[in-house]
């Protein structure tokens, strides 16, 4: 509603400004030209990635690269999935990211409810700690986490990737969900209590569905941090390549003598597309969610 009226105000303003100043149009055309040019430049790397993935080998490793191809081929993809056990790595990545998303959504939902719906001792302290925890550089903890995973017997398993990412995505997820939980009116909770719904029942049957859009927005961030992880995969999956995730598999195509660029671009495409799809699907919620977290 407010978005629509905001837009209306803005366009009305534009019309009036044009009337007053008289010279708006050329300025706007220039601005639109720049916007389109920037869009092309920003999109170009992704276009080049997909294009190179579909180019036949000779055109990829050519000293006169052309920005199109007349004979698209799936050779690079075929090489990626047969030479390298890429399907397996893809599945591993999916398992890691999926587990992190599910677990962190559930745990963060409970924690966010606790800090928004109850007043208790140390509540503010906890909130500040969640905020500080967001800033902890994941990478600095690689060494102690390595030893922790070794002691837990998790090295070379997907668990060694799921657990740390779960811990690192939680503080942000809690912080972000807080806004969504707070948005559900307290009156609803009182009404449910009056009707005899238990706290547990209210939590799962009323609050959970209402906060679900927020959970989706939050999970994008958990998903991406787990899906993109390179450092932990490199440090914790040291000897069992069957447990590798996509980023490690991608690097196999870099060879000291000559990089297989076709393979690298095809593998990169396979790794990028799921995130891209996820992002586009939830972008509306993402933007408003970020706004919520920012506020």
């Amino acid at each position: 509603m407010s978005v629509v009226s905001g837009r209306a105000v803005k366009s009305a303003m534009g019309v009036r400004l044009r009337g007053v100043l008289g010279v708006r149009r050329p300025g706007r055309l220039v601005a639109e030209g720049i916007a389109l040019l920037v869009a092309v430049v920003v999109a170009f790397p992704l276009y080049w990635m997909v294009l190179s993935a579909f180019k036949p080998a000779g055109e990829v490793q050519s000293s006169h690269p052309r920005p199109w191809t007349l004979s698209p081929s799936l050779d690079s993809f075929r090489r990626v999935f047969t030479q390298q056990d890429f399907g397996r790595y893809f599945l591993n990545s999916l398992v890691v990211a999926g587990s992190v998303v599910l677990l962190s959504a559930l745990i963060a939902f409970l924690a966010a409810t606790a800090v928004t719906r109850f007043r208790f001792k140390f509540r503010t302290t906890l909130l500040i700690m969640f905020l500080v925890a967001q800033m902890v550089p994941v990478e600095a903890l690689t060494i102690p986490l390595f030893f922790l995973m070794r002691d837990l017997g998790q090295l070379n398993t997907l668990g060694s990737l799921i657990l740390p990412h779960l811990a690192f995505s939680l503080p942000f997820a809690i912080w972000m969900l807080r806004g969504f939980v707070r948005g559900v009116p307290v009156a609803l909770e009182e009404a449910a209590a009056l009707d005899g719904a238990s706290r547990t029942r209210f939590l799962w049957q009323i609050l959970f569905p209402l906060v679900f859009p927020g959970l989706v927005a939050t999970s994008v961030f958990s998903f991406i941090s787990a899906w993109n992880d390179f450092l932990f995969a490199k440090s914790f999956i040291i000897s069992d390549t069957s447990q590798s995730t996509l980023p490690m598999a991608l690097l196999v195509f870099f060879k000291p003598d000559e990089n297989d660029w076709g393979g690298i671009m095809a593998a990169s495409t396979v790794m990028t597309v799921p995130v891209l799809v996820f992002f586009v699907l939830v972008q509306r919620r993402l933007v408003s969610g970020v706004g919520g977290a920012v506020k």
Partner: protein
Amino acid sequence: MTAEPETARAPVAAPARGRRPRPHSPRRAGWTPWLYLAPALAVLGALLVYPIYQLGLISFLEYTQAQVSGGEPTSFQGLANYTALFSDSQFWSVLFATVVFAAACVVTTLAVGCALAVLLTRVRALPRLALMLAALGAWATPAITGSTVWMFLFDPDFGPVNRVLGLGDHSWTYGRYSAFLLVLLEVVWCSFPFVMVTVYAGIRAIPGEVLEAAALDGASQWRIWRAVMVPMLRPILTVVTIQSVIWDFKVFTQIYVMTNGGGIAGQNLVLNVYAYQKAFASSQYSLGSAIGVVMLLILLAATLVYLRLLRRQGEEL
């Protein structure tokens, strides 16, 4: 609305009505919030707090391959690791490079992001959608695939950039500064969308009359940005700045992949990669941990500044 099914079953719940209603009032919270918090606290305690403690501990010990394999007992070294680190000139040059590199990334990201956010407010729906979609794509691209693609674009033999610029087989990763520049471009490419989208949302929330009044007074776009938008967007700008500082200070993947582990003779090392190389490549776990502690402290300082700013803006916790 969702409560309706409950109301429909009211007769069943009738006895409960007879009792004193149980408003989940703050006073009667009891141990319920702690029950809800338990899983989160367990995970964070085990996988965040404990490792931080371990990190600090290891940085005071002698911890090399011998201790890892259990061949030798660990021994307490006091500040020896830190003295060794601080007397190493490479550490200072890496620290300096990290700070300058992060600052350059933050400034460029913010400048590009804010400029494009303002640009978005001045164009019609179609160009806006095009730019938004392109930015969303860059935002969603994983750091590692972003790195490989940018390497390929700037590849001396097969990349289109050298072809277009007529640079022949000039290698971007050979020189120290051109390698840093290449990484910077990639970092800015994948991090400006967050700034742009957030700032754009902030500008949209500014009442139209305010901007209109400024424009009617004949203010230039730059003047409007400086004198009207920046003060009104201050909370949002604070958040995106601090977030960018934190992200760019701990860049790992891009440097590691694009400069192949820190560049020729370590010329492109940043703290994060430096710590990784010390620990996992040369098994000096205690030195790596000491670097980690330094990083942690620097980012903690940034966080405290952030918290102060939030407080001053009256953010309700």
